[in-house]
Structures are given as structure tokens and as C-alpha cells.
């Protein structure tokens, strides 16, 4: 009745195959591992994932730039200058200047703030709205589930971006409204995910055991089921941030997001298209920023998926 009665399959296999290289012996599990919290184990496995770590570094850099925009920017992003219109990148204007003589580097830096805010805030709102609704549907079942699921299905049947554009157009052009529109469009994914996992959890023995312990239903939902579905939600949320950033850029490109003259990568791309041949830097830098940050969030999401998936457990 101690940890030592765990069968050490590795050790046994070594006995059967004496000519195995020494390394196999060293790698075989010796004793049961000391208590390691799931969070710690996930972190350890995440750090082994090189691309994911790269993605995390890029995300952190962009987050820092967004937070510290006033310090990072070399100039006022909205200050126009008639003497410096569409200048190519130089030591003075790192990313060049735009058609109104504004410093593109500073605008990209301030644009990071709009993009990161739109991405994270809208996804957080989508999580806060979608997960409880999904849990409710999965755990309560019956007509509650039917109603919630049909509404989510209806929302999912409209393409994400089209729904966001429609909602943003309805709410009026503003960054806050774009965020609300993105949050609403992103939430049915979380509703469906949380519902599915709650349904799985409802059939498990440990939920039955929790009921046998006299836990009230809300406690089972929030304290027993929710912690078990956090890992997939975290992965989905990370990937959703990447999508939300693209959505924000698209809405701003169409004039439904950040309003001029406030900088946003999407609106910068829009005005850049008229000068694509004369001043390509106007499109390259905001485009590169979108590309990098979206790629980084996707890499982090993939890394999290591998790190949190219990099936990839190699202890």
C-alpha cells in the first residue's frame, strides 16, 4: 500500500532486453514522483516546447509595448507634419512616415494597444459570458440546454467575421463597440465547448460522488466541474485572442473599429493601400505586426494544448 507498489514497467522491460543502451535504464522511472501540481507540470512541459516559448516571448513583448506605449513611441502618433510626408524608413523615422507625415513606428506602437486590448478584453468577455451559460446548459439539461444550444448553433451558423461586422455596424463605429461585437461573436464557441465538457463531466463518477457528498448544484458546477475544464478553455481562449485581433484589424480596416485619427493596425492598412507602390512601408509594418502577434498567440495556444493534454503525459 505505498508508492512502491506502482509497477515500474520500464525496469521490467530492461531485464527482458539486456542489450538496451544504458540511457534507457537511466530514463526508466525510479520512484513515484513527488507531488507536483497540474499547473507546475504544465509549465514544465510548456517550457520544453521551443516554438511555444518563442510565441510567449513575442506575446509578452507586444503586451509590454502596448502597456508602455507612451514610453516606447518616439513621437506623438497623431502629430502631422507637412514637411515629412511619406518619408521612407530612416534613423529619424524608423518605420517611415505616412501620407499626413505621422511617424509610422509610433502609430504601430499605439496600434498595439488597440489590438491587444481588443483581443484580450473581447475574449475575456466572451469567456465570462460563454462559459457559465455553457455550464448551465450542460449541467441542467432539458429545455434550458435545448434553448441555449439552438441559440449558440444559430450564432455559429453565421461566419465569425460577418457576424462581428453586422454587430459592429449595428452598434456604430467605435473601438468599444467593435470589442463588444467581437465578444458576442466569439462567445458561442465557449458556450459549446463548456457545454460539451460539462456533459462529459456530468456522467463521471466523481460528479456522482460529489453529489453523494451533499454538494449543492452550483458548487458542483463551479468548484468541481469548472477546474476540470479550465485547460481546454485556456487553449481555446488563446487561439480566440488571435482571431479577435484579426477581427479587430478587419473591423478597423472597414472603418468600424478604432476611429481616425487614433492609430490602429487595421485602419493603417486601409490608408496604406492607396500608396502600396510608392510607400510600401505604410503597409509592411502594421501588416508585420498583425502577422507576428497572431502567429505568436497561435504558437502559444498550440504549446498550451500539448502541455495541458493529459494524453500526452510522458511523466
Amino acid at each position: 500500500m505505498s508508492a512502491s507498489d506502482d509497477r515500474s514497467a520500464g525496469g521490467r522491460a530492461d531485464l527482458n532486453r539486456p542489450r538496451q543502451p544504458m540511457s534507457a535504464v537511466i530514463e526508466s522511472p525510479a520512484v513515484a514522483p513527488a507531488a507536483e501540481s497540474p499547473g507546475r507540470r504544465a509549465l514544465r512541459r510548456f517550457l520544453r516546447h521551443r516554438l511555444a516559448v518563442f510565441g510567449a516571448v513575442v506575446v509578452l513583448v507586444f503586451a509590454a509595448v502596448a502597456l508602455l506605449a507612451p514610453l516606447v513611441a518616439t513621437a506623438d502618433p497623431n502629430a502631422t507634419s507637412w514637411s515629412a510626408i511619406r518619408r521612407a524608413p530612416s534613423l529619424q523615422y524608423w518605420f517611415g512616415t505616412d501620407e499626413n507625415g505621422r511617424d509610422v513606428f509610433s502609430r504601430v506602437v499605439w496600434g498595439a494597444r488597440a489590438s491587444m486590448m481588443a483581443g484580450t478584453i473581447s475574449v475575456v468577455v466572451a469567456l465570462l459570458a460563454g462559459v457559465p451559460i455553457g455550464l448551465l446548459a450542460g449541467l441542467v439539461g432539458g429545455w434550458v440546454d435545448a434553448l441555449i444550444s439552438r441559440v449558440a448553433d444559430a450564432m455559429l451558423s453565421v461566419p465569425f467575421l460577418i457576424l462581428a461586422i453586422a454587430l459592429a455596424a449595428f452598434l456604430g463605429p467605435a473601438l468599444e463597440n467593435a470589442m463588444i461585437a467581437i465578444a458576442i461573436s466569439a462567445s458561442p464557441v465557449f458556450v459549446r465547448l463548456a457545454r460539451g465538457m460539462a456533459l462529459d463531466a456530468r456522467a463521471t463518477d466523481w460528479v456522482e460522488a460529489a453529489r453523494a457528498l451533499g454538494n449543492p448544484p452550483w458548487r458542483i458546477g463551479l468548484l468541481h466541474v469548472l477546474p476540470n475544464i479550465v485547460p481546454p478553455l485556456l487553449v481555446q481562449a488563446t487561439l480566440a485572442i488571435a482571431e479577435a485581433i484579426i477581427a479587430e484589424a478587419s473591423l478597423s480596416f472597414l472603418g468600424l473599429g478604432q476611429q481616425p485619427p487614433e492609430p490602429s493596425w487595421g485602419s493603417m492598412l486601409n490608408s496604406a493601400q492607396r500608396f502600396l507602390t510608392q510607400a510600401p512601408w505604410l503597409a509592411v509594418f502594421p501588416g508585420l505586426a498583425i502577422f507576428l502577434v497572431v502567429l505568436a498567440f497561435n504558437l502559444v495556444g498550440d504549446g498550451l494544448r500539448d502541455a495541458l493534454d493529459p494524453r500526452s503525459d510522458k511523466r
Partner: protein
Amino acid sequence: MTVPALTIENLSVEFATDRGSLRAVDGVSLSVAPGRTLAVVGESGSGKSVSALAVMGLLPGSARVGGHIALDGEDLLALPPEALRARRGGAMAMIFQEPMTSLNPAFTAGEQVAEALRVHRGLAPAAAFAEAVAMLERVRIPDAARRARQYPHQLSGGMRQRVMIAIALACRPRLLLADEPTTALDVTVQAQILALLGQLKRETGTAVVLITHDLGVVADHAEDVAVMYAGRVVERASAATLFARPEHPYTVGLLGAAPRLTGGEGRLASIEGTVPDMRNPPPGCRFAPRCPFAITRCVAEPPPLAEVAPGHMTACWRAPLAQVLGAA
């Protein structure tokens, strides 16, 4: 005779299915005194587990429950859901068959024992955890302080079942329902867990209902036995009496089917036929179609549970069986 901790009278459980209603439990009456173990024996589908879930109030909403279930004289079926919920895990607790999957994978063993104490005794987290470690020590988990900080996947099956027992007994329940607590464990661990249950029962005076299909377990760990067949209790006696003088033909068959070390080689004895379709049970004695001693009355009329000797009840028209066997 002390006042029973649990009294079940004429319990019936009916499920609505697509093909008509199914009466899984039909007129079951049982009782357990504090500090004693009642074994409920029967094959799969005999209604053992459903009866236990009915006591806990854990049956799905589609189940219709009739009869009386009293815990310390309090009618559980008449309680509002909130009050019943407060009894679960407090006054009565249940241990499930699958220790491997009955613990929440996201929390440590100690946290899960502490949870029971927080729900029912309103203890603060730190106090509950300290008490949980003490509880893990009581179920003889070595190095309990360290084990309390481990997650279910780091514990062996036997260890997990000990944690389940610790959770169940944390609030000193009057009644413990153990639904095949050792079926998923290997034989040596089985014996340890059952011995532990016995010790804890004597220490705390908890009444135990041990649901099993293993007659060996019954002989060693229970004082009283109820044999169930197709949703009914067919025989009730003390364990000693049941093994010495089984009265119901089904019990006789069960005892004959149990493997023995002293027995010869060859096929194990089995009871001919199969369990009846519960959607359409036989009108008389439900065992009649498989019973070697059945007479016309058995097929037509269900036999009541009647006393053949003091404390020994059987539901058989042909009881006492000794006469039948003597005549044959």
C-alpha cells in the same frame, strides 16, 4: 435489539423507459442497526445499487420511488430536496465501486476530504485540511501529510479507495452505503479495505450497508445478509444462519456457484436460465422459471417474505426447504 439506523419498508423504484415502465426494485424491506453490517447480495440487475441510490436520493428524475426510507426515524422520501442534500455526506454517505474515477482529478486527496468537512461542518479551509490529514491517518494511509497533497493520479487504487472512505466517514455518518467497494481492486487490497471498513465501523458505530455479489466478502465482513433477486428480497438472515441453512432455492444456488478451495476440479456449478426481463417479470415468484423446486403456486402467486425461524425470513412457498429436500 437496538433501534435501526436505517429502515427501508416496501421500497419500490420504477423507471419510465421507451418500452414501458420498468420496476427495478419491488417491495424491498430492510433494516440495519448502528455498528452492524448488512450485506446486500445479488447478481447484476437485482436492484441492489438502485436501492442504495434511492436511499441517498441520487436516482435520476425519471425514477419513481415508493415506500418508506427512514434514517434514524426520519422519513427521507418526505424531506424537501434541500434537506435531503444536507443529509447526504453528513448523516449518510456512500462509497462507490470505482475508486479510480470517483475522485476529482483536479484536486488533491486532502482537499477532497476537506471539502466534505467544509460543506457539512462549515470548517475554514485550513482547519478542514488539518482534519482531513487526521482522517487520512485514520484510514491507515501511511505518510498521510504528504499523501494529502498528492493528486488522484499519483495514488494507487487501494489508496484511492481509502481516500474515498475517508471522505465518506469525514462527517461521522450514521449510515454508510458501500456499493461494491472492492470489486475494482485486487484481492489482497480487497481484504485490507474490508478489514478497515470493519474496524472503522466498530470505532464509530456507523451502520454499514455493504452491497456485493461476492459471497466470500459476506461471510467475513457482514453480520446480516439480504439476498436480492430481480428487484425483491428473497431471503434475510444472519450471515452465519444463511451459510449454514440457506432457505431460498436461489440462495442455495448462489452458494453452490461460489468457488471453493476444497472443491474438486471441473465446471463451477451455475443456476440454469437467466434473470427475467424486468419489463415483463413473471407473475408469481420471480425465480420460479429457474427454480428446480417450483410448483404451480410458485408460477401463479408471488410468495411473501415470511419467517421460517426466528430472524430468518425467506420468500418461498416451499419453505422450509429441508422438508422438500427430505421428501425428494
